[in-house]
């Protein structure tokens, strides 16, 4: 069973990884993905993450369950933040643990791919000049990436 949290606060990736591996000697591979708020143009004040309460948790649980059915995971933690997130801050964490690296890489990669295109979250840009910018558009490449699986 995956650990799934949606929260406004930041998360501690190292503490989450330790929680998965502590007192276990059967985990050989731990893959962590951290998604961060980018701002290459230096115009962004924050991204505001909106989500569909209830559905977001349920949809992530469904994606996690598919990953767990497909690969031999020994731990799967997914934390997604909502609310305003500043450039450089963490948005999402996926940790997959397994005996072998292939399963851990695949599970983390799979979860992130489906999280991007299937979990009900939306990003709105708040700009440094005080205006609210556009909503971030979904990328065709994200949808196309799903066909890998």
């Amino acid at each position, binding site marked *: 069973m995956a650990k799934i949290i949606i929260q406004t606060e930041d998360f501690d990736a190292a503490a989450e990884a330790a929680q998965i591996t502590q007192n276990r000697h059967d985990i050989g591979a731990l893959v962590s993905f951290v998604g961060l708020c980018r701002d290459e143009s230096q115009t962004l004040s924050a991204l505001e993450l909106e989500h569909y309460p209830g*559905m977001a948790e349920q949809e992530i649980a469904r994606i996690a369950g598919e990953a767990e059915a497909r690969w031999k995971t020994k731990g799967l933690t997914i934390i997604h933040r909502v609310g305003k997130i500043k450039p450089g801050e963490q948005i999402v964490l996926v940790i997959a643990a397994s005996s072998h690296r292939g399963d851990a890489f695949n599970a983390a990669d799979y979860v992130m791919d489906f*999280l991007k295109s299937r979990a009900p979250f939306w990003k709105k840009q708040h700009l440094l000049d005080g205006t609210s910018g556009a909503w971030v558009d979904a990328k065709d490449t994200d949808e196309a990436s799903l066909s890998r699986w």
Partner: protein
Amino acid sequence: MSVKLVYFAWVRERIGFGDETIDLPPEITTVADLLSWLARRGENYAYAFEKAAFIRAAIDKKHAPHTTLITGAREIAFFPPMTGG
């Protein structure tokens, strides 16, 4: 049939509020029917759903293609393509 409608992101912004409960006429049987019917309710809805094919829907918090029957639905959500992660 009375159903709760919920809106997210720019669909919510364009409509002007996040949820409402409405009575649906009996001829509205699919998500696509509901989208067309809503688009005729006012300028705000017309604006939100101007590219109807682009809008995603969920019935009772599960993704639902536009062809899905809405019979028995308690909550129907409309939103843009998702951009989480």
